[in-house]
């Protein structure tokens, strides 16, 4: 969990917009959502769409695609549940770029942001046996490479990572 005082799942939130920048033709397609379920469903529909378009490299097997999907899901879920968008209309932009055996992903948002590295180390040190919470960011870290989250321009932050076909990730949860 990133922030205290986050709204419960049942609390209405402002609409969240997701923009899909297609890798094949670079045409921007805009999606707008009015509830939490729509956001996450739309993200998964996008990944299905990318797969159907044949965007991913041939070596990108289904399990690697599931890892990419999991990383995107966990991050967007984190934004939807905990990010502080202050008085701005929440916006999330997702961009993927296939690169050889890996796929680079950038997810920009207009929230207030937070220190990802510090949060990761805190969660790592506090992970209890069979934890009920606190695994999401660690899952993202485990199944990605070159993970970073930083301010990119005024009012925007960007999560960047790569998912590689060569990975055999492991998140060491205490049992």
């Amino acid at each position, binding site marked *: 969990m990133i922030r205290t005082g986050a709204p419960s799942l049942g609390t209405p939130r402002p609409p969240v917009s997701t923009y899909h920048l297609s890798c094949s033709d670079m045409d921007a397609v805009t999606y707008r959502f009015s509830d939490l379920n729509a956001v996450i469903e739309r993200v998964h529909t996008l990944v299905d769409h990318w797969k159907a378009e044949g965007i991913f490299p041939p070596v990108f097997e289904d399990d690697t695609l599931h890892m990419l999907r999991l990383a995107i899901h966990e991050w967007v879920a984190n934004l939807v549940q905990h990010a502080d968008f202050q008085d701005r209309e929440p916006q999330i932009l997702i961009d993927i770029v296939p690169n050889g055996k890996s796929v680079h992903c950038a997810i920009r948002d207009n929230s207030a942001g937070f220190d990802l590295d510090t949060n990761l180390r805190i969660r790592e040190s506090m992970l209890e046996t069979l934890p009920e919470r606190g695994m*999401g960011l660690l899952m993202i870290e485990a199944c990605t490479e070159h993970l970073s989250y930083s301010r990119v321009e005024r009012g925007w932050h960007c999560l960047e990572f790569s998912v590689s076909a060569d990975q055999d990730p492991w998140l060491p949860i205490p049992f």
Partner: protein
Amino acid sequence: MPVSTMSFSVEPVNQETVIIRIGKALDFRNASEFKSACQDQVRKGVRNFILDFSDTGILDSTGLGSIFSLYRQVSPLEGQVVFASVSRPVQVVVQLTRTYKVFRQFPTVDAAREALV
């Protein structure tokens, strides 16, 4: 007779064992509902849970956490939580977290039922 909730159906096998068909997703959107459904069953005396993941495309960290919570509830009662018919997206999470060391897996619900009853 199976009892459907918004996301899950609960099918009694006997007084101590139920099959929970997870459906499309177990994630941050419905994990609370899953926990409530399981707690209701534990209050009724159920100790063994067969989780059917055959149709499940999404298992996220919150969903997995709710399964850990169930495990912590029933293991002191000598109960079990087992996975059946695990889909590939769920298997990726199981492999990532090595939770196959905690939850026995069966290729089908029938195989899990035979092992537990």
